[in-house]
């Protein structure tokens, strides 16, 4: 795995992912942009930034020991006898060409063939519970898989009714997607499921490009040595995330900030209140990452393009990118 901290530049992309790591309720990150800018690399590196979580040892859904959702039917172990341990937070890849049965889970073929038993084999949605689900080339995902995800991402629960099986299990995950807009746009319903969207572009200076080449080259020459070299930096980021999570609950949000957030959303004509809510949550996570004890309007300003850029109404004849439009509105709102 290429270390997260070794990614050159791309501050927005890193910030978006860090915010998602701090507060899962922000609702996922979409990285949309040019080819060859390290989108997939960054997301796959995210796993190493996530502090471990406690989970029931035998639970296929990695439930929390005290969670009400965890039922004996999940693992067949009585509640009083369950133990938990520290586990890495899952970052599950939804590969191209994935079949529906592997996404939602299906009949365990081996047990059916060998023992003639009906048993449920959990799929990727189960494995992603309490963690992250990553979809590369999200705009190329087949429609019927998108439909499945939309439903589960909204309800946090996977309901399987197929092949004579009837299973319900928790599937709360943060959706992380990446794609290249040239290859097709995203269905609006899916776009809406992402809390933050980052417009990723190529580093603009030669120095940055050279640095990218050097690091990539060093990484390919010796993965282990490269990871060792950056492990301290990654550790620093990880501690920043842990600290921010602890702070998150105690961060104050003043009325003036709430008003400002509403003002921004009204000026941008974003649909519904999801935009506002995401903006506030993202700003709060950002404030926590900075070690602040309250959200300031400047925090809002810094994350507004991430939280709102993909929620603007489309105007096919307006050439200016979403980022530019957000900036324009921010300049107006903050000028007053």
């Amino acid at each position, binding site marked *: 795995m290429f270390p997260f901290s070794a990614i050159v530049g791309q501050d927005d992309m890193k910030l978006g992912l860090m915010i998602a790591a701090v507060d899962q309720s922000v609702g996922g990150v979409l990285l949309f942009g040019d080819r060859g800018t390290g989108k997939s690399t960054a997301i796959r590196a995210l796993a190493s930034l996530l502090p471990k979580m406690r989970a029931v040892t035998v639970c296929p859904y990695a439930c929390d020991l005290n969670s009400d959702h965890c039922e004996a039917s999940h693992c067949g172990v009585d509640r009083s006898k369950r133990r938990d341990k520290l586990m890495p937070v899952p970052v599950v890849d939804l590969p191209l060409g994935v079949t529906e049965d592997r996404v939602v889970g299906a009949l365990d073929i081996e047990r059916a063939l060998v023992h003639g038993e009906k048993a449920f084999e959990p799929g990727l949605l189960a494995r992603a519970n309490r963690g992250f689900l990553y979809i590369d080339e999200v705009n190329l995902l087949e429609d019927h898989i998108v439909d499945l995800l939309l439903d589960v991402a909204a309800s946090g629960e996977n309901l399987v009714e197929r092949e004579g099986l009837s299973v319900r299990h928790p599937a709360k995950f943060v959706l992380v997607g990446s794609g290249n807009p040239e290859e*097709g746009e995203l269905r609006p319903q899916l776009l809406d499921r992402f809390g933050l969207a980052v417009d990723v572009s190529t580093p603009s200076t030669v120095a940055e490009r050279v640095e990218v080449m050097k690091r990539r080259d060093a990484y390919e020459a010796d993965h282990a040595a490269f990871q060792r070299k950056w492990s301290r930096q990654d550790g620093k980021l990880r501690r920043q995330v842990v600290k921010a999570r602890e702070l998150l609950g105690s961060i104050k949000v003043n009325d003036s900030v709430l008003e400002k957030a509403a003002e921004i959303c009204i000026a941008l004509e974003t649909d519904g209140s999801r935009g506002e809510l995401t903006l506030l949550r993202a700003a709060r996570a950002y404030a926590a990452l900075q070690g602040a004890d309250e959200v300031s309007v400047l925090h809002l300003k810094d994350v507004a393009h991430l939280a709102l850029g993909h929620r603007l109404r489309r105007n096919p004849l307006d050439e200016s990118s979403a980022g530019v439009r957000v900036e324009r509105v921010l300049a107006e709102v903050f000028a007053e």
Partner: protein
Amino acid sequence: MSRALPTHDAALVALLLAAHPHGLGGVSLRGMPSPERDDWLAAFRGLLPHGSPCLKVPVNVSEDRLLGGLDFAATVSAKKPVFATGILEAADGGVIILTMAERIPDAAASIIGEALDRRTLLVERDGVTRECRVHYSVVALDEGIDDDERIAAGLAERIAFRLNVRDLQGFQAELDDWDDEDVLDARQRWSSVQVPDAVLQHFSQAAAAFGITSLRGDLFMLNTARTLAALAGDSAVTEAHAATAARLVLPQRATRVPAEAEPPPPPDTETQEEEKSRSSAKDIPDDILVDAVLAALPPDLLDQLAGSMPRSRQGSTGGRGGPATRSRMRGRPVGVEATRQVGGARLNILATLKAAAPWQSIRRRDERVSALELRPSDLHITRYQDRVETTTIFVVDASGSQAAQRLAEVKGAIELLLNDCYVRRDQVALIAFRKDTAEVLLEPTRALARVKRSLSALPGGGGTPLASGLDAARQLADSVSRQGRTAAIVLMTDGRANVARDTSPGAEKAEHDAMNAAKLLRATGLRSLLVDTSRRPKPRARKLADAMGAGYVALPNADASRISGTVQRRLAS
């Protein structure tokens, strides 16, 4: 001891890919099948170390053949899941050859590209989870003829080189002294080759100068240069290696020609210090790579880039992810789907049996029968995908007979129509004719902002080469339908022609030519509509519409929104 490398690009590419298969992605080899192409493939295979897999991938390859999947027959007889290895996994350490690569479906191209990127294959299919190493390179045999028939952009991006079958001649002589032993030696040396920082700097500068955004270009140059040095037996990348790498990697990625007198960016101080300790490449003049690439650019591309013509292909590469409707019977099969109601759909027997198989022992035990037990929940139908994408081609008369004010109205109407096209996710193309020729201002695109831009820049005045306009529309519509899209033509003119096909003036010949062109258009059977833009409608335009089999709408003093409404109704019916 530095060994002389071949100078022929095709020979170099074969050596490079053999010596460093998975860091370079591969090559797209464009052109029709020919003895030269076979020779090149044979020579390339000859360079691969003994035992390297070399697998052909047919154009209609299914996802489960690429990725692997459950082996149904073996699973049933072994009574436990047996996984059938896919092509990509089997190709580890070797090469896959994509035949008719320009026709490979996007989904398959993405899978192949993704595995190139990650060098790991992740399979989640049919109840099987599998992760394995895949190091391979791709030889994409691109047999596209037109500019618009190309391999999927996402795959092209992950492949370092491009060759044309035309340019293969004479490569063989240069490979005479090379064999798989040399390739193995180069693989040994590869990681110890030094790459001076100055070279990296030049690579990035050159990539930026040619407007290449993706960093894969930079990395491909680096890997190419290093492999060249390894092949030559050099301990470090030299100026010549760097220039060759740039020449092989950059031209196909260039989006612009660098400005003449661009000031060199200030050198990185740290870089300079490190540079002193090494010697081989510190003296590369700033623009040597740029020159090398410029020399390798095909002349027509150069003209096109220098004239800053819009890169027409960018927005329309293969129509990926475009709207497609799922039909129950028509189109291209795209997969199977479980259903309990088969009515009107095509039952997929294999998938249905496959779904029923694991259950047989349970069902038999329950009911004590021995025949195959099928349940409604086993039923699978084949899903089809039917593309209904429409490309609307606007053909605009921009001649002097269209008074400036009318032209402005026509522009306004088209802008309104664009909004509808946006809603339907249609593509739009724009052709204008004036003076003595017709010009495709915009190839089919979904980037409507660009349509708007070229529309507002459209000048008026001059003669009316109506026939040329109609011919251009027919040709464009033809290429659109060859890509599997439906074309519709909206012609906006007063029907008056005064420039013939051969650009000679004179109304009589011009109108005769126009009528001919209209009849040819009719023969294509395309949906078309003529919007008569003359102030007082005359039979002339009506006659033309009849000749081309088009709907006719006269718009005396109509405003833009009325034009838009009428066109929409006519084309919908």
